[in-house]
């Protein structure tokens, strides 16, 4: 015997009501355009008409030196970007969060606001300020370094192949450290006071409580920050590098990342005309790289980490 649904209606319209508007806007204005773009990676202009070429564009991207060199250069730079963010941004964020979460810290709210400020700013602003600060011409950094007695170590970092990427990355870290800091901070505040008291009774001091109790307890947040860093490393890094170093991501391509490479390919740059199909190919490759990372996180890291969760 069939039974009626308590709410009285067979087709639960309210679910449609809740889910449909978001799904619709998202599908039409986010997924559709992206899929449409990715579709283009399977096509190429042959004799002035779009023709289906299968994976030819991908072959080109990975075999022709002109493309492959750029791709691997950008990829390598992205890896460096990621490593630096993981080694500097996230530990600094964690340290700041750990300090801020000390109970009854005076001025904690003010510090928090200040630390988050750079995150709010547009890259137009950030790019401009840091170029000014690091500029060898206007003398802010050289003067400061002279003052500190290390003036001879100054170099025009943004302009040197050896240091430009690292300099840009440090600026990015300066800007975005607020986000992981907030996440860590929230996670640290969520640790029950009893757990910490138990640790104190077990004879752990401040340091060892942090390493042996707090850190394991916020591991899931560490994982989350890790994957957000990974994604941001491929998607968000574009704006800053484009603003600071231009479309060619100089000097000599040393700051080129997947984002700038894709943009340059897709839309062209100065004398170079855009190639929509190759741009889409780079974009799709980027998409798969991100997808692999996210899958590793979802199916490997996150599962393991969640065991610690209460």
């Amino acid at each position, binding site marked *: 015997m069939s039974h009626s649904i308590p709410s009285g209606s067979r087709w639960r319209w309210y679910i449609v009501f809740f889910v449909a508007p978001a799904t619709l806007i998202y599908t039409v204005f986010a997924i559709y*355009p992206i899929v449409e773009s*990715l579709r283009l990676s399977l096509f190429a202009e042959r004799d002035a008409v779009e023709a289906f070429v299968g994976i030819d564009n991908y072959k080109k991207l990975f075999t022709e030196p002109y493309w492959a060199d750029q791709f691997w250069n950008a990829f390598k730079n992205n890896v460096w970007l990621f490593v630096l963010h993981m080694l500097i941004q996230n530990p600094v964020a964690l340290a700041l969060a750990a300090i801020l979460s000390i109970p009854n810290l005076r001025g904690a709210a003010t510090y928090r606001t200040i630390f988050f*400020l750079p995150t709010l700013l547009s890259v137009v602003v950030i790019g401009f300020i840091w170029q000014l*600060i690091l500029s060898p011409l206007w003398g802010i950094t050289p003067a400061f370094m002279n003052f500190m007695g290390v003036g001879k170590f100054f170099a025009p970092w943004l302009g040197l192949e050896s240091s430009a990427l690292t300099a840009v990355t440090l600026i990015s870290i300066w800007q975005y450290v607020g986000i992981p800091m907030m996440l860590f901070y929230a996670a640290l505040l969520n640790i029950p006071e009893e757990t910490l008291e138990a640790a104190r009774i077990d004879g752990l001091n401040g340091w060892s409580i942090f390493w042996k109790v707090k850190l394991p307890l916020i591991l899931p947040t560490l994982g989350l920050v890790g994957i957000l860093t990974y994604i941001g490393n491929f998607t968000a890094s574009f704006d800053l590098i484009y603003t600071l170093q231009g479309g060619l991501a100089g000097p000599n391509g040393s700051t080129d990342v997947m984002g700038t490479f894709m943009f340059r390919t897709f839309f062209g740059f100065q004398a170079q005309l855009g190639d929509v199909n190759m741009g889409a190919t780079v974009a799709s490759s980027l998409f798969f790289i991100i997808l692999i990372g*996210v899958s590793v996180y979802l199916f490997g890291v996150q599962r393991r*980490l969640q065991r610690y969760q209460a």
Partner: protein
Amino acid sequence: MRSNPLSSMAIHGVLILYSALALFPLLLIAINSFKSKKGIFRDPTALPLGELYSTKGYQSVLANGDFPLYFGNSLTVTLISLVLILLLGAMAAHGLTEYRFKGNGLLGLYLILGIMVPIRLGTVALLELFVKLGLTNTLTALVLVYTAQGLPIAIFIFTEFLKSVSGEIKDSARIDGLSEYRIFFEVVLPLIRPVIATVAVFSMIPIWNDLWFPLILSPGEETRTVTLGIQQFIGQYTVNWSAVLAALTVAIVPVLIMYVIFSKQLIRGITAGAVKG
């Protein structure tokens, strides 16, 4: 923790040092925006006092009488997008967490897929779409794109939060005779209030600061946003740094105000378990 004065001093020392690092660049802009060009380059770190002081930069900005319009546009776009992101995102998250239905998990995954891919990839298709819809050079186009772009993160955070909320209160409302719609608006929405600030801040930043979509979708004079306006302004005044710095300062202020409004709620939201991982 027992605080001994020495370690407390060390802690504040570290915090103040980092504050200086975070604030110095911003102060630099603000200070120099009140100087003449000569003043900026003679000594960038000097305070705008005496002969260095000049409001020429701000005069150039004001002379370009369009900035109020740009601010209006940015505010309109940002606020409407925010409302849509928050409302539709919360609705979808509620639908996904509260009801069992076929394809629920898959739909959830689909909706947060957008975190991974920058919509910018789809610019050309988007533009063609808006041309067909007759929405180019309208703020509506921007609102739609930003909403689509902001939804995945919003849904992700709301879902995480709603998962941690006991379902009993909704059941209780059901027993009190509320329809599913009213349960959402009268019970769930007030419940997620602390997280709303979190989502609002995280969604607001990229919208306010975006340069790309205004440039492509709505570059028209009447629909220009502040960030685009500033950027074009910089383009026109490449060598007039007083004006550029004044414009940059002017661009920072509104974001700052919005942040201060939301910031109290922000931490409460994050700590409410919003972003648990």
